[in-house]
């Protein structure tokens, strides 16, 4: 009994409930004529699509910058890279890496500026991140109209000005990672090996980074700033580095997302991309102050699992598409839970 | 104690006000018929083109065998009708009516009304 209690406490109620829910969904799937293999590969594909974007949360949480609602900034860098690679007519895996190659420096510059900004607003990072993300998306919406891209695949065929709202990558680098060493079993099961390997490499890089001297210093900044300061760590520098890494991961993440999704979504598309990523890492058991790679993997799997399974299973049961509403409630409920939970202990300490 | 009394009074006040708002703000859809109808075994033929108006508003013309729609708000109203009979004389009459809290469609049968018989107002 005691054991179960500690287990629940460790796992946290939301994770447990959603984990069980997902489990029930998988069990029910065959009974409502949902093919379990199709569902499973859908979950895996979406897991690969979102993984890096969720991973992008880790560095900033670790240095105490909170949940990176400002991920749209990184996404914008990624979009610029993607659009430019199409303009350059690069295709296949080479095209993908061209896009990443262009996106990363842009993300680094943006992240650097963003990091400097966040260093001046310690304590209010999350709210500001939210609005920095939003305003940069709105600003780029104007830019997409004005930037002088010429490729016929990207601008409106006639009439309008600027880039299209969605651009297909079909002829360029569609599924270039997904299909790399992909495994097809039978008719229904598909495993996007390349994408998962790529995600694994990214996870490994971040894991390795936090084992280096800089990495431990970054963790120290987040978990115990006074101690870090006393031992001579440059707090602002560490925070800036973490923001840059987060932003770069955001840029790489969106390109990986797009090669699987098949479309580049411009204009207001990146607006809400931050929320599923934030919800994902929180579901994985991260808090506002602490996040690990394991949190990323578990969280992304659970969250994307729920998002994939609910429409197919629930819709077959009650003949209504409630997935959108469930997505809103689950993702925001999780964020809300994280925001209100951590401070409870703090306020108990202050005793107000 | 006094505090609770005031609270209860406020709640009661709100309930009363809501009830009044509900009663006086409710909109009813009325169908006005100028068609031949039978009522209690008597037949009331539609014979004239009739002008009607609600609550002293503008007149609407309703030809024989026609139906029109009107919206009224609140429980108490009057309808005014005007028509020219076969002698060429203009007849005009006014009838008050009350809708209470009725649900559903309300029908006014003009041929019954101009005979001043009860039952010109039907709730369906």
């Amino acid at each position, binding site marked *: 009994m005691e054991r179960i209690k500690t287990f629940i406490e460790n796992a946290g109620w939301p994770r447990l409930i959603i984990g069980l829910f997902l489990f029930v969904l998988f069990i029910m799937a065959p009974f409502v004529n949902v093919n379990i293999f199709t569902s499973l590969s859908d979950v895996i594909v979406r897991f690969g699509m979102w993984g890096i974007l969720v991973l992008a949360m880790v560095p900033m949480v670790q240095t105490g910058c909170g949940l990176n609602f400002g991920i749209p900034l990184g996404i914008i860098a990624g979009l610029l890279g993607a659009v430019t690679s199409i303009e350059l007519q690069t295709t296949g895996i080479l095209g993908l890496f061209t896009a990443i190659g262009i996106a990363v420096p842009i993300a680094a510059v943006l992240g650097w500026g963003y990091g400097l900004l966040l260093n001046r607003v310690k*304590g209010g990072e999350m709210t500001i991140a939210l609005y920095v993300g939003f305003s940069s998306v709105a600003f780029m919406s104007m830019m997409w109209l004005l930037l002088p891209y010429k490729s016929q695949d990207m601008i409106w065929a006639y009439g309008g000005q600027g880039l299209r709202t969605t651009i297909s990558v079909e002829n360029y680098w569609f599924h270039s990672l997904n299909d790399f060493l992909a495994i097809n079993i039978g008719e229904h099961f598909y495993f996007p090996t390349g994408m998962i390997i790529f995600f694994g490499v990214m996870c490994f890089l971040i894991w390795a980074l936090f084992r280096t001297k800089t990495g431990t210093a970054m963790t120290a900044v987040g978990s115990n700033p006074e101690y870090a300061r006393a031992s001579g760590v440059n707090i602002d520098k560490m925070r800036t580095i973490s923001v840059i890494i987060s932003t770069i991961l955001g840029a790489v993440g969106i390109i990986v997302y797009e090669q699987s999704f098949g479309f580049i979504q411009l204009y207001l598309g990146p607006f809400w991309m931050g929320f599923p990523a934030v919800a994902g890492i929180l579901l994985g058991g991260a808090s506002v102050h602490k996040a690990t790679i394991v949190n990323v993997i578990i969280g992304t799997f659970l969250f994307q699992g729920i998002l994939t399974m609910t429409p197919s299973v629930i819709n077959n049961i009650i003949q209504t598409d409630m997935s959108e509403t469930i997505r809103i409630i689950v993702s925001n409920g999780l964020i809300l839970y994280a925001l209100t939970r951590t401070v409870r202990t703090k306020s108990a300490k202050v005793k107000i | 104690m006094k505090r609770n009394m005031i609270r209860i009074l406020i709640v009661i006040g709100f309930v009363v006000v809501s009830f009044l708002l509900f009663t006086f703000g409710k909109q009813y859809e009325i169908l006005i018929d100028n068609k031949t109808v039978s009522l209690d075994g008597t037949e009331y033929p539609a014979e004239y083109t009739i002008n009607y108006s609600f609550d002293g508003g503008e007149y609407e013309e309703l030809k024989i065998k026609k139906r029109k729609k009107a919206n009224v708000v609140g429980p108490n109203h009057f309808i005014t009708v005007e028509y020219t009979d076969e002698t060429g004389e203009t007849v005009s009459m006014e009838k008050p009516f009350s809708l209470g809290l009725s649900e559903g469609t309300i029908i006014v049968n003009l041929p019954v009304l101009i005979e001043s018989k009860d039952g010109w107002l039907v709730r369906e």
Partner: protein
Amino acid sequence: MNKNLSKTLINNAVPIMFIVLSILAIPLSGLSGTYLIQEMLTRLARYLFLVLSLLIPIIAGMGLNFGIVLGAMAGQIGLIFVTDWAIVGLSGMFLAMIISMPLAVLLGWVAGIALNHAKGREMVTSYILGFFINGVYQLVVLYGMGKIIPISSNKMLLPRGYGIRNAIDLEPMRGSLDNLIPLQIGDIKVPVATFLLVAALCIFIIWFRKTKLGQDMRAVGQDMEVAANAGIPVEKTRVISIIISTVLACIGQIIFLQNIGTMNTYNSHEQIGMFSIAALLVGGASVVKATIPNAFVGIILFHIMFVVSPRAGKTLVGDAQIGEYFRVFISYGIIALALVLHAWRVYKDKERARLIFREASTSEAKGKEG
């Protein structure tokens, strides 16, 4: 004198920037003065109540209450019922207010408790809370109404038989408050009754600040710990401030929709928080201080920009779309800017306090040594 001037300029940088922007953009748009004045009067009547509902949580130190969308949702639920019962005109409006008020109180209470658990990050929490409750709202309105909650009129339901339609026609209620006391000056219509209601709210806010509760709120806003030591029930006071704000927003949303005349069941409330807050900030308010004049000035400046920018964009680059994006950018950008300035100030104060503390302790240590 000179120093004072530059200080005023810095403190009012945002409104001044907007005035300059408007002066540049109005001629470009080619809109007439009469049109603009009419438009501004309409928009003042439409938004003032909502924007003013933000003031009380600011007094209580809880920042910009993005949770006013909760009140807006409550108001819309009231409007749905009233429309279903066919209560029209002013009676319908007030009945909608009365039936949605208990819901607004409940939601405000929930929000207040959530925010008490998130001290120091009220704004982001209230923002997310808005999304979360929006999900619940969708669940109730899109799936519950017509199934569990009885709706008698089929006109309001989706063809599948349950769930409210995307748009609800409020034509029977449209302008019932705005046109209650008709006043026309030249070609310009003035919504007198709405302004009277707003005036009543202003008087309420001024009066409220002077009451015991209002004073308590200010104390809580300045320093929670000090207030708690002075015997003020901090958490309760904070909850009350959010409840008041939510209820006012609920009334504000009903006034807003009464003016617009149609309700987008699933969208009308979404942008309300952002637009109201952006307007207040444009008026020169900050996260810790906002006044009634801030609300007035803010709405006028923000909405001049709103009306003018698509037209100006069209003249400048031949595309109205760019103006649309420009105003979205400005709305979010202005909030980001205000938040950054505020956080920066707080952070600097903290740094300074720490330095003073450190100096004091080192000099103390030195004193002991000597």
